[in-house]
């Protein structure tokens, strides 16, 4: 564990569509830490904290990144999307619903990451092949083994023609 550096910075970003700001953040803090603790985004999951499992994936300007390997200051003046940004109040996003309907959620811990990476893929490529889906999602590990159902969920969402 690395001790926090004393130098601090203020971070302004768009988080799930809202402009937010956080002051006095040590420049050595990771993005996952600030998202979870300062902004209460507990949907960003700690799987390993060293970039080997993908549970902490968020979208930075629409691109999936491991938030455990990003510094919080890297998000300054950028757009961050976490799983909390997908649902509309208590109404799930159709992609989230597709995951549930296709039994693509077991313990649920990797699910936020799976959904965000799927969304990023579908935003670029609305009709991905199975191989493209597997490749795009290969950076997220699911120990429960939901892989096949996740592919089903993405394909079924894509087949609905929804964006």
């Amino acid at each position: 564990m690395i001790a926090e550096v004393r130098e601090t910075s203020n971070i302004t970003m768009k988080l799930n569509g809202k402009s937010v700001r956080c002051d006095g953040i040590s420049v050595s803090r990771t993005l996952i830490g600030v998202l979870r603790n300062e902004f209460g985004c507990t949907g960003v999951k700690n799987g390993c904290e060293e970039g080997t499992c993908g549970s902490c994936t968020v979208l930075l300007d629409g691109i999936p990144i491991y938030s455990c390997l990003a510094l919080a200051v890297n998000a300054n003046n950028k757009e961050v999307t976490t799983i909390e940004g997908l649902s509309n109040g208590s109404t799930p996003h159709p992609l989230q619903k597709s995951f549930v309907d296709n039994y693509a959620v077991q313990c649920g811990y990797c699910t936020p990451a799976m959904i965000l990476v799927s969304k990023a893929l579908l935003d670029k490529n609305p009709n991905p092949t199975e191989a493209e889906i597997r490749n795009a999602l290969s950076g997220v590990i699911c120990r429960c083994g939901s892989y096949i159902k996740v592919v089903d969920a993405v394909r079924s969402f894509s087949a609905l023609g929804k964006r």
Partner: protein
Amino acid sequence: MARTKYHSDMVLPGMLYARFLRSPYAHAIIKGIDVSRAKLLPGVHAVVTYEDVPDEFITEHATKYVIIGNVVKIPGDRKILDQRLRFVGDYVAGVAAEDEQTAEKALGLIEVEYDELTPVFDPEEALKPSSPKLYEAGNVFNGSPEKPTLTFAKGDVKRGFEVADLVIERKYASHFQVAMPMESRCCVAEWEGDFLTMWVTLQEPYVARRIMSRVFGLPLQNVRVNASVFGGGYGSRALPQPVEFMAAMMAKMSGRPVKARLSRREEPISNHNRPETITFVKAGFKKDGTLTALDTRIIMNVGAWNPTEVGVPQHMARVATLLYARCPNISCQILVVYTNLPVGCGWRSFGSAEAIFPIEEMMDEAAGKLMIDPIELRKKNHVRTGDNLAPMFPSLNMSSVGLDTCMERGAREIGWYQRMKRGSSSERDISLRGDKAVGIGFSMGSHSGGIRRPPSNAMIEFDHQGKATLKIGTPDIGTEQATTQSQLAAETLGISVDDITVLQADTVHDVEDAGILGSRSTSSMGWATVRACRAAKRMLLEKASQMLAESVDQLDVKEGVVISKATRRSVPVPAVCSKAKEEGSKIEGRGLFTDNCEGVLGFAVGFAKVEVDLRTGKVTVLKYVNFQDAGKVVNPSILEVQMQGSVIQGLGYALDEELVYDRKTGTVLNPTFLEYHVPTFLDIPELKCVAIDGFEPLGVYGAKGAAEVGITPVAPAICNAVADALGVRSYTIPLTPRRVLEMISQKRGPAKGRGAQKTKGD
């Protein structure tokens, strides 16, 4: 804020964060420990060492257990903290501080003087008289090198070998497999006076409560354990470990809640891994394939202590002796051996996968030598519905065995008979030309199907608006038991699943349950749910009978309405509940399942088609087919997910996953996902999982447990497929590229004057 609250997301007012100091040595004694400087660090509120905790065993029974009806005294092994350290990573001290950084810093201020002892890592070494001993009673749990932990015997194996036409004797090895759930172990402890609440990532909350109450000297009702949802377990998080007790102790010392969340690197040494096993199998066959004798000796490397006591060895013994129970002469010995390694007592099938792999490899090898189709060899010998299992497991019921159907359908699915057309591997001349070799293999598998002690309780209660709440003890670790149990409840009560809310795994509900493991939730927990609902239904009908002035036996509940079979008069369930409330009562029911038997077995058959890259040794599974006998399936979609998950974990067990440790120091070398390879999206073969139509007479609505058995045939099916491809067999898993390359060079024969290599086991 995400809506599902995992324990690692919990924040309580005033909460402290714990970090743990762990032993750098595999075997050592703490000669002296000085925590004074750590205690003085600003922000530190509690430091705990072996001197501060109750001197109590944390294992479940520690004093007694029941093995096949006999009460046996079981020695306790693990204390909360001990002066003696038994693996690299063993617990030396804990610190609770305002934040993790401070706690980590405080660990660096703890001064420890260690007396290093010689460690032992190899379980066969640990059995020798000259070996260092982990415990005073020696290195065998509940036994000695001469007296195995468990022994089962039927008939006379010596005689059975004498009458055999073919006897094969082999030694097999399997390695530690780490469960690696995505949410690392986490607990939160909070005291309010003499009342302790624990939020834990444990699969047996009621067992944890019992142990906590014993260890801390509290009445049962003063301990509350909540394990309602957490990120995976698979059996590796069945029981509490020192972490939970240390967190509770530090919460008591500091007067503040304490959260202990372990890092990914601590995971492989903080749950229980699948044990390393060394298995000797000797089997005797007649020329026509009839098994005349089967002798299995399993050395189970359990590591530094043994949380499941005889639980896992019993599962091993069941499959090692019952899959071929028709054989008149069977013997099985299991030695549970301590070594200075992280705990390896089992998960996902709790011993069955470890025990099935050697036996099913043996059968495949025998089929080749006997020139009998491997499927026909199994059909000739496997256990069947109604078979008598005395004297080994007289109270285990062989009431539904769907193996033949699974084998036949799986064979068609994989194209098994095309394989036979080209001859089995021992007949074919496999010269391994070109870059790739393809093979097909299969294996039977089995594991507990539940419906056995220990107990489950359930409670259902209706509010005055007719909505029901079902309380069960099963945690939600991804198996969707809330859905399955609510289906069983809805079916029994005659109401809609939408009118049922399920509350799980919080001991405040007071529905004692043995936990989610052993594939017992649908089958055993299910029976408790059904019985609770039957009791509630009786109450409902009695009240409705008063309201309708009709006899109870004329009434039934259909789609939320109580209706008279005779007159067709009816009253909706909500109206009945409301009437009960007016009269000061409530429609409710409790159910208990604790049938004192060994339960039933579930079955799975796996077929694998593999391609071996002869240059790199990499084995790619092209297609895997899993057919299971799960009795009557309650929820096909949920079961399919569990079947897929079991097979995928089995792929890791067969091909890539192996806990690697330094052979001199015992330090784990691959503790993260980077070095320890679990299957990813890119590793999944074409996979077909099917549950055949079955019916288990003892099962709730015909169902039996099925979420684990799918893993048991995977490793042997793949080993058999690789043997089919290469014409040479591995007796060790995982089949890493390095091992496969060794097999290939062995097959290709001696090169550059190295001399002929012996086939293993000859």
